[in-house]
């Protein structure tokens, strides 16, 4: 899976993964993809809610041994 920027939000608790994600998205262009990893189990629902409310698109989500990886494509401006 291709991505343009990668962020590690592992071992961070609510709301830090979302705040890191927001910051990461501000550093890439529309249409580009941010890969972000988190270990907070609440982040699964939170990232869905974040995308639903902001219009960014989650193109893929993986889970491996308690690590959640989200691929989020930045919305058009």
């Amino acid at each position, binding site marked *: 899976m291709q991505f343009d920027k990668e962020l590690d939000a592992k071992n961070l608790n609510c*709301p830090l993964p979302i705040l890191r994600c927001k910051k990461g998205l501000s550093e890439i262009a529309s249409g580009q993809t941010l890969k972000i990893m988190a270990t*907070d189990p609440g982040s699964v629902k939170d990232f869905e809610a974040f995308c639903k*409310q902001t219009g960014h698109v989650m193109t893929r989500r993986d889970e491996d041994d308690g690590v959640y990886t989200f691929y989020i494509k930045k919305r058009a401006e």
Partner: protein
Amino acid sequence: MAKKLALIASKGSLDWAYPPFILASTAAALDYEVQIFFTFYGLTLLKKDLGDLKVSPLGNPAMPMPIPMPNFVQMLPGIESVATMIMKQKIADKGVASIEELRNACIEAGVKLIACQMTVDLFDFKKSDFITDIEFGGAATFFEFAGESNVNLFI
């Protein structure tokens, strides 16, 4: 048009410092326009030094304690400091943000922080006690924004 969130932060203990800053920073990340009005003990959360924030088990029977502790023990000198130390350690261990970190996130995201001028006068606070990224105002200032907000919470 962006949604709006208006918060009143009225408490100044370490535990109660979390809800306003968590909600405000998250709402800002969700593209809300956010204002927090800090009044009474909440004003403590705008001080330059947040190191004085404490948590007390006294009068808070729901607070999980490492060992059961009756009220008359909780009132002994030093217990509050120990409880605060334990809480801060837990916060660090669990990857929970510090209040300073969340407050900075709010400031960076453009959350407007308003200090209640009346409380500043009441408690003889000095403007130099506070961080510089704030405004001072009263109840009418709060309602100017709150009246057109989608979400209003008193914390």
